Structure formats: structure tokens, C-alpha cells
């Protein structure tokens, strides 16, 4: 969806619309992969549960798509995978499309009600923007940092002592730098987002991917009806 420049939330102006051609194209591609047998739905639904970790460690899959925050799953659940993985850009449907997507991140808002707004804001800026703060974010949490100047910083990006870098043959930040800010698409996070995400994840994707013959149009119509009830 983001590769085509679409956004099903409709942004802040709304309304949300999940019946997009880009969404249909993605789902029909996934259905055809499942039918041909070269892709599978991860056991128990996604790669962020024990069955998914085991499936990875049992060498049943050669690739899976996941956001950078997945890093800690390697250290926590799959320590034996050190040096086994290669991180790559997301493939695109057509040349020239964006090959990554930003869908928000860990909340970094200072609310009006907070007792010490200045201090909270100062800390948030230090943690999310300063080199020292970003170093902690990457070393401890394994998230991709927002300070893009650090992406190309040799000492930061190529630190072989970093516990997450050790899992990869190449360096994750080299891939991020290669993608570049201009190639990162955007999906808004607005008040209808939880409704869309929840309906798609619990119902639509289960319908379409657990039964590759299920009509994508029907599934998306059901989703749209449920979302329309909330907007």
C-alpha cells in the first residue's frame, strides 16, 4: 500500500478506505504465493510468537518481513541465530516505488497535563535525537534511530560489539542508509487506526490467507463495513 503511495487511514481528514487497488494487489499476490506453496502463513499467525521463532530456528523459512524493532527477538528467543541472517530492502511491485514504510513508533508525546512539561520534553529530545540517547536506543532496544545522521556514522552503524549487529552478515544500518529517507513511505496513525488494524488482523487476513480461495473483494467489503460503523 505504501509502495503505491496509498494510505488506507485517509490521514487526519479521513475517511478510511481499505478497498484500495494496492491492498487488493498485495492480498492477491499473497494468495497466489500460498496457492503455489512457496509461502506459508507463519505457525500461530505471526513470527513474533514461540511457534514462529521455532519455525525460523528449524530452517523452514528463508525469509520473513519484519520491522527493525524485531531485533530483540533474536537476542531473547533465538540466540543461536547469530551471524545467520541477511537484512535486505523490501521488494517493490514497480521500479521507482518506495521500498520501506514508516508507521509511527513508540509514543514520544508530552501531554499538556504533565507536571513538568519542560523536563519531559528535554528528556524526550535527548533520548530520541541526541547521539548519546540514540546510542542507548540502538544498543539496548535495537530500534532504528530517528537521528538519520547516525545511520552513516561508521562507529555507530558498524559497531561489531552491538548485540544486534552480530545476528547479521551485513549491517542493518547500511540497508537503511541505502534506502534513504526519500524512499520511506508513510501510513498515518490516526484515531481510526486501531479499528482498521484490529479488524484486518483478526478477521480479514485470517479469511484471505487461511483460505487462499476466499474472495478478497468480499473480505475487504466486510472490513470496510466494520470500519464505517466507527467513523
Amino acid at each position, binding site marked *: 500500500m505504501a509502495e503505491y503511495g496509498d494510505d488506507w487511514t485517509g490521514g487526519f481528514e479521513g475517511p478510511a478506505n481499505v478497498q484500495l487497488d494496492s491492498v487488493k494487489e498485495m492480498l492477491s499476490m499473497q494468495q497466489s504465493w500460498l496457492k503455489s506453496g512457496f509461502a506459508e502463513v507463519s*505457525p*500461530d499467525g505471526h513470527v513474533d510468537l*514461540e*511457534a514462529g521463532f*521455532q519455525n525460523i530456528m528449524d530452517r523452514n523459512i528463508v525469509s520473513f518481513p519484519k520491522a527493525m524493532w524485531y531485533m530483540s527477538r533474536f537476542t531473547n528467543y533465538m540466540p543461536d541465530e547469530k551471524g545467520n541472517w541477511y537484512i535486505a530492502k523490501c521488494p517493490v511491485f514497480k521500479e521507482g516505488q518506495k521500498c520501506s514504510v514508516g508507521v509511527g513508533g513508540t509514543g514520544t508525546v508530552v501531554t499538556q497535563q504533565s507536571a513538568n512539561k519542560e523536563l519531559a520534553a528535554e528528556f524526550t529530545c535527548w533520548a530520541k535525537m541526541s547521539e548519546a540517547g540514540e546510542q542507548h536506543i540502538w544498543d539496548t532496544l535495537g530500534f532504528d534511530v530517528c537521528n538519520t545522521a547516525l545511520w552513516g556514522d561508521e562507529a555507530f552503524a558498524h559497531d561489531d560489539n552491538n548485540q544486534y549487529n552480530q545476528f547479521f552478515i551485513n549491517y542493518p544500518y547500511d540497508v537503511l542508509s541505502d534506502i534513504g529517507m526519500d524512499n520511506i513511505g508513510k501510513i498515518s496513525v490516526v484515531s481510526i487506526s486501531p479499528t482498521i488494524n*484490529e479488524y484486518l488482523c*483478526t478477521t480479514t487476513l*485470517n479469511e484471505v490467507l*487461511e483460505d487462499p480461495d476466499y474472495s478478497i473483494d468480499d473480505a475487504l467489503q466486510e472490513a470496510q463495513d466494520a470500519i464505517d460503523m466507527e467513523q
Partner: protein
Amino acid sequence: MKIKNFLYSQKVAPYVFVLPFILSFFIFWVYPLITAFTMSFQDIGAIKSEWIGFANYAKLLKDNVFHIAVWNSVKYMFFTLVLLIPFPMLFAVLLDSNLVKAKGVWKAILYMPALTSVVISGTLFRLMFTEYTTGQMNMITAALGLGTYKWLKMGWSGMLALLIVACWRWTGVNMLYFLSGLKSIDTSLYEAADIDGATSWQKFKYVTLPLLKPTTVYVLTISVYAGLAMFLESYMLWAGNSSPNNIGLTIVGYLYKRGIEKNDMGYACAVGVVLLVVALIINFAQLIMNGTFKKGED
């Protein structure tokens, strides 16, 4: 002297003793109940709330996901009643008879699951019911030549998993209720039945069952509510409040989804009020049918 008089006063003392209960009843039950009821007619916002009449209830009528949640909870309640009343009663009768040796051991084994945390046991059951080939249930079915199943993705097997957790956890508790009920039955009744030449089945049917009725009605009443209000088991079994096609969503799960996950407290309160009304209707109906409110019984 005055304090002593006050403490020793037969008129005041009972009120002092029941005060803690009355206070907690009003603070933690009556007050939230009234607040929830009024909130169910409002659109609760972060800054201000407004009265919207029956809009939340009208939305509930059209809300398919809520209907799925109600149906799941009712099904779960029904099956827990079917499984968690006759079997614990049977086990209690067996443990009360001379047919079973090492009674203490059996009681402890059956009761132990109730002492564990649902968070821990639910996680273990989730891992046992994984659709991956190394899951315990799939290893058993595969060894029997039945293949592997996506246990937690299909309606019937998801409900089966919930019921297995419920039986594992509550059989011992209900059995203890029935055991205590059996202890209160006068043994001379059985002796009299023996003299009259009653068989074991006749003794069970004409002495045990009728005299166990108060216990049975109590277990039935709390089981109806426990079944309708189930949430944590489902939450742990699906590692969160979302299950494929909502096969594990319960009324309280939906209340949590609306109130906490989507921050729509007014709508969540409407869900809560519906749960209360459904539980009250079912329980009053069964209590009236069982004659609990009739005078002069028991």
C-alpha cells in the same frame, strides 16, 4: 466508659461487625454499578463527556463483533455447566465412598490447578495447542495418525481448548463444594436406605441428589456468572485479546477491547450493563425454577 458501653451494646455491635462489608459493598459494587449504568448513556471523552441517550445500546444491536462475543460467552457458559457440574459431583461421590483409596492425594491433585495462576497455565496451554508440529496436542494427534490441526484458529477446537483449561482448573474446586455438601448429609439416611434394600443408584438418586441440591444450585449460580464473565483464559490462550475471526472473544474481552484498547468507556459500560442483565436473567430464571425463593424449603 462511654466507649465500653458502645462496644458492648447488643444493638450497635452487629452494625459494627457488618460495617466493613457494607462499606466495601457500596464503594466497590454499588457505586461502580451506578456509575457504569450512567456512563453507558454517555460518550466519554478525554476532556468532556456528553449524554447520547440510547445510542450506545442501539450500536450494540448492530455490532456483529459484539454478537459473536455474546454467542461465544453463552456457548462457553453452557458447556462449562454441562462439564463442571456432573463430573465434579461424580468425583465427589466417588471420593466420599469406600471405592477410592488415598483420598487426600486425589483431592490435592484435583484441587492443585486452582492454585496456579491463569497467566502461567494459560501460556502453557497456548504452547500445548500451538499449530506448529512440536505442540503437544499436535504430537498426540500426529502419533495417532490423525494429522495436525490449527487448534487455535478454528471455532470448535478453540472452544475445546477453552473448555479443557476450564475443566483442568475448576473440576477440583467444584468437587470440594460437592464434597462439603455430601459431608452435611446425615449418614443415618443411607443406613435407613440400606435397611430398606436400596441399591447404590437408588441411594444416589433419592438421598444424595435431593440433599445436595442447595450445593448444586450454588455451584450452578456461580458457574453461570463465571462462564459469562470469562476473559483471562481466552486472553492467555491467544496471547492477547485478538483471536482469529474472534473465535475466542468473550463479552468481557469485548468490554476490555472497547474500554481499554479503544478508550471508548461509554460503549464499554453498555457492554458491561448487558452482561450484568444477561447474567441476572439467567440466574434468576434458574433460581426460580430450582425453587430457591420458595418459602419453607431447605
